[in-house]
C-alpha cells in the first residue's frame, strides 16, 4: 500500500492510503476517542463519539478513509465540546451507576468520561426503566448500561455463523437483544470475548465479572490514585488572617462524602487553621449563624426538606459545591427514579413481606417532609458552582479543590483524581 500524507489540526501525518482515520491518527500519536469503532469491524458509525471535521463538515471519524492531502480537525474547542456532549448524552440516556457497576475501572465509556473531563452532564438524566436480562446461559445483559454501539452484534457469532445479539425495536426503544438459543452455544471464551468488547458493563459473564479486582483494572491508574497529595496549605496561614467559613450538609446521601472529608488525617489540623466551619454535621451547628464562603453539598434532593436546606445554603453561601455522585446527579438514591413513586412506596410500606394487609400506612404527617416524585440533582434546584465527582471523592482531592476555590488558584484536575466510583 502506498503511503500518503495528510493533516490533523495542521500537523503533518503519514499513513497508508485508505487506512481508517482513527487508526491512522493513533499511529501518528493523535487520539480520537471512539466507543463503537473496533479493529477489523466495518465502520459502524453508531456512537458518534469520534466526530471530527473535514472541509468544515462534521463527520464520524471512523467512517473516513485517509487520502492524500485531506485536512482533518480533531481537537478544536468546539469539537472537544461536541464529543463530550455525545458522551454526556450516553450517560443521561442509560442508567450508569458507576459505584455499583461490575465493570467500573474496566469500562471504556467511563474512561472516556474521565478523559473528556465530564464532571456533570449538561443534559437532564432520563431515567428510563430498563431490564437486566439474566436468562441467557452464560451472560447477563444489563440494558441500563447499553449504548447501542453495535459491536457485539457485528462481532459475536456462534461457531456455525449465527448472530447472538441483534437490535430489536426502534427509536428510543431500541435495545440489543440476545438470542438465547444461539447464546447457549457460545464457549466460555467466546462469552468472555463478548464481555470484553462491550465498551460498558452491559454484557457480563456470570461468575467472571470480578476476576480482576477493583484498583488493578486497566483504567484504574491505581498507583497514582493513592498518591493524591494534600497540596501545601501552610503557606496561606500567614497571608490570610481572616478564616474562611465553610458549611456542609448531607442531603439524600450516605454521609460517605463527609467521612471522606475527615479522611485527611492530620491534615485537618492544618485546615482548621485556615477555615472555620459554620452550619455542618461536623460542628453540629444547625442554623447558619454567619454568611459562608463555601457550601459543600453531599447528596441530591429526594424530599421537600432537602430542597429547603439546599435553598438555604444557596442563600447563605457565596459558592456552592456538589460533592459526590449523589449530589451531582442523584447517584444511588436515584436508582428509584426509573420506578414510579407509587410503586416504590407501596412496595416499601404496603406490600412488603412483613406488612400485614390493612395494618400499615405510607408514613405522612405535616411534620415529616414529603417524598419527591424523583431524586433531583442539586443543579436542577439551585445554581451550583462546582462539581466534584466520586463515590466518595478522595479526601485530599476534595480539600485541594476547596482550597483552590477559596484562594482563587488555578487548579487543573488530572485524570487519576477523577473518579465516578
Amino acid at each position, binding site marked *: 500500500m502506498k503511503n500518503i500524507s495528510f493533516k490533523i489540526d495542521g500537523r503533518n501525518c503519514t499513513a497508508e492510503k485508505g487506512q481508517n482515520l482513527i487508526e491512522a491518527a493513533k499511529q501518528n500519536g493523535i487520539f480520537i476517542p471512539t466507543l463503537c469503532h473496533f479493529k477489523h469491524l466495518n465502520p459502524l458509525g453508531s456512537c458518534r463519539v469520534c466526530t471530527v471535521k473535514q472541509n468544515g463538515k462534521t463527520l464520524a471519524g471512523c467512517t473516513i478513509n485517509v487520502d492524500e492531502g485531506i485536512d482533518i480537525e480533531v481537537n478544536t474547542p468546539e469539537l472537544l465540546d461536541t464529543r463530550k456532549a455525545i458522551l454526556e448524552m450516553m450517560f443521561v440516556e442509560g442508567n450508569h451507576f458507576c459505584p455499583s457497576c461490575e465493570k467500573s475501572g474496566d469500562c471504556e465509556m467511563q474512561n472516556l468520561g474521565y478523559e473528556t473531563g465530564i464532571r456533570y452532564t449538561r443534559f437532564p438524566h432520563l431515567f428510563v426503566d430498563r431490564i437486566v436480562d439474566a436468562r441467557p446461559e452464560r451472560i447477563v445483559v444489563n440494558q441500563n448500561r447499553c449504548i447501542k454501539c453495535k459491536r457485539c452484534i457485528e462481532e459475536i457469532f456462534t461457531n456455525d455463523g449465527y448472530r447472538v445479539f441483534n437490535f430489536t425495536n426502534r427509536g428510543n426503544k431500541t435495545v440489543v437483544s440476545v438470542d438465547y438459543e444461539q447464546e447457549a452455544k457460545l464457549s466460555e471464551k467466546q462469552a468472555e470475548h463478548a464481555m470484553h468488547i462491550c465498551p460498558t458493563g452491559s454484557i457480563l459473564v456470570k461468575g467472571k465479572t470480578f476476576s480482576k479486582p477493583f484498583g488493578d483494572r486497566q483504567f484504574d491508574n491505581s498507583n497514582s490514585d493513592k498518591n493524591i497529595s494534600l497540596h501545601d496549605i501552610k503557606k496561606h496561614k500567614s497571608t490570610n488572617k481572616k478564616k474562611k467559613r465553610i458549611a456542609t450538609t448531607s442531603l439524600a446521601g450516605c454521609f460517605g462524602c463527609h467521612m471522606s472529608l475527615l479522611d485527611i488525617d492530620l491534615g485537618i489540623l492544618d485546615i482548621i487553621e485556615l477555615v472555620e466551619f459554620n452550619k455542618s454535621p461536623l460542628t453540629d451547628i444547625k442554623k447558619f449563624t454567619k454568611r459562608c464562603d463555601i457550601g459543600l453539598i453531599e447528596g441530591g434532593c429526594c424530599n421537600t426538606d432537602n430542597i429547603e436546606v439546599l435553598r438555604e445554603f444557596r442563600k447563605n453561601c457565596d459558592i456552592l459545591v456538589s460533592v459526590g455522585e449523589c449530589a451531582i446527579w442523584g447517584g444511588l438514591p436515584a436508582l428509584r427514579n426509573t420506578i414510579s413513586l407509587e410503586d416504590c412506596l407501596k412496595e416499601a410500606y404496603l406490600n412488603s413481606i412483613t406488612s400485614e394487609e390493612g395494618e400499615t400506612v405510607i408514613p405522612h404527617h405535616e411534620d415529616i417532609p414529603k417524598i419527591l416524585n424523583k431524586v433531583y440533582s442539586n443543579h436542577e434546584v*439551585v445554581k451550583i458552582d462546582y462539581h466534584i465527582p466520586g463515590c466518595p471523592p478522595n479526601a485530599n482531592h476534595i480539600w485541594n479543590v476547596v482550597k483552590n476555590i477559596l484562594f482563587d488558584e488555578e487548579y487543573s484536575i488530572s485524570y487519576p483524581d477523577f473518579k465516578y466510583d
Partner: protein
Amino acid sequence: MERKRLLTRLWQFQNDFGYIPQVAIKELAEELRVSKIEIEGVISFYHFFHLKPTGKYIVYLNNSIISEFKGYSEVKASFEKETNCTFGEYQKPLFSLFETSCIGLSDQEPAALINFYPFTNLTPLKVKKIIEQLKNGENIVKIADNPSSKIQFKPEEDKTIFFRNYKLGESLKSLKNNTPDQLLKIISKSKLEGRGGAFFPTSTKWKYCKESSSLKKYIICNADEGEPGTFKDKALLNNLPGLVIEGMIIAGYITGATEGIIYIRAEYMYLINMIENTISKFYEKGLLGNDIYGIQDFNFSIEIQIGAGAYVCGAETALIESLEGKRGEPRIRKHFPTEYGYLGFSTVVNNVETFALAARIIELGPEFILNIGTKESKGTKLLSISGDVAKPGIYEIEWGITIKKIIELSQATSPNYIQISGPSGECINNTEFNRKICKEDLSCGGSIMIFNRYRSIVQILENFITFFMVESCGICTPCRAGNQIILDKIKKLKRGICTTKDLTDIKNWGKIMQQTSRCGLGTFSTNSFRMALDKFESYFNLKISKCDADCEIEFDMESAVFDYDQLIKTTQ
C-alpha cells in the same frame, strides 16, 4: 428463500394470522440460516408487524399534528369507548387499536386506517357508526372512504406539467428514436432535480449509474412518502400511475438497468391493486418486459415492494436496507447508491414525482419545462397543503409562487405559523409571507402545513419531536438520545418553569444533534424548533422567565410533590 423476500413473507404471516407467531419466526430463521433474533429485529423495527395476536380489525389512528388539531383526542377516546379496547394493547379478539404517524391523508383529518382501508374526516359520531357496522359484519371495503385528495389548483394549460392529459406510453415513443445518451442530455438540459426534497440533479445520478460497471442495475421508485403533511406522491400514484412507471422505464433505458422496484409505504396499500393493474397494462402493450418497443435487448420489469411502517425508510439507503429484508437503518455516508446500492449493485433511487416529471420532460421536451418557473427552479411543483385552510389538497404550482398567493388560494384563515417541507423542513412566521417557493428562497419538498394564530406552537413542536423520537432508527446516539432530551425540555416548557437559559440549551443541543447525527433524520429533527425560537421570539418569551446567565433556577415544587400527595390521598 432469499433475504430480500423477507418483508413480503412477513406480510403474508401478518395478514394470515394478524401477527407473526414464534413458529413463523423459527421457520423463517431456518430458511434464511440466521438466528431468530435477527428476524425479530426486523419485525420489531416496523410498526405494522406485530409479535402478539391482534384483533380481526386493526385500527391505525393518525397522530400527526394536523390530526391533533382537527379532533384527534376526541376520536381516539371514541374508538376506545366504542370498541372497549385501549390503544397500544393486545387483548381483544375483534379490535386492536394503535397510533401511527402521518398516513398521507392530511387533507381529510382526523383519519385512520382500519385493516389498511382509509376512514377519513372522523368524528366521535362517525367512529361510533363505523364500529357498529364492523361489529355487524358489514363489508369493510364498502364502508371505507375514498382517500383521493382533491386537486385544488393547477396553472393555466400551457404551464401545467403533471395534471394535463395523459395517454399511456406517450413519453416512451421517444425511446425508439433516441439513444440513452440523447435522452440523458434532455434530462440534463431540463435541470431536473430530485423531488423528494434533496434536489440532487437527477441527470448526474443517472449518469453515475449509467457509467457504473455494475453487473446489474436497479431503478427504485421511492413511494415511502412519510414526511408528515405530505400526500402529493399519493395523488400522483392515484391519478397518474402510468406516468411514474414511464419515468422508471426511461431511467432504465438511460442507465441500462433492467429491474425496477416501487417501494410503497404500507399506508398506501389501497393503491396497490390499481398500480398493479397499470403495470399489467404496460406489459400487455409491450412497454414492460423484453425488447420494449421492439428495441432489441431493452428489457425492463417492475415489481412492487410494500413497506411496513417506518418513516426512516424514506431515506434512500434505509429504503435499500429495507428492500434487502433488513432493519431500515440508513447506511453510513460512504458510497452513493449508484456505486453500492441494492444488493451491492448500482442503484438509482428517485422520488415518485421525479419519475413522473422525467416522463413529462421526455414527452413535452425540455424547452416546455425551462419556460416555466424561476431561474434556479424549473417547471412546476406538487404541493400538499393542509392545516387551517378552507381548501386543503393538492396544488400544482409554478416555482416562484409566493406564500401569500398560497394562503390566498388555499383560503387560509389568520395564518401565523407555516411549516414548509414537513417537520424536518423549516417554519416561517407571518412577516415572511412574501417569500417565494423556489430554490433561490424557500425550497420545498412538497408539504405545506398552515396553522392559524390560535394554534399552540409548543404543541406543534412537541408533536414533531415526539414523531422523530419514535421514528428514529435508534442506531446513533445524538438522534436516539437527543430527541428524548429535547422532548424533556418541551415538557419543562409546558410546565412553565423554563428560563432564557433553557431556550439557549435547546438551540445549542439541537445544533450538536444536527452536526453529529448519522442521517438526515437526526440532522433535521430540531431544525424547526431552533428556527421557531427566533421567529416566534415574543411567543416564547411569554412562556419563560427571562433572565441573565446567573439567574435563579426555577424548581417546580408543586409537581415534584404531586405524586406523593395523590398517593397519600388514595391510600388513606
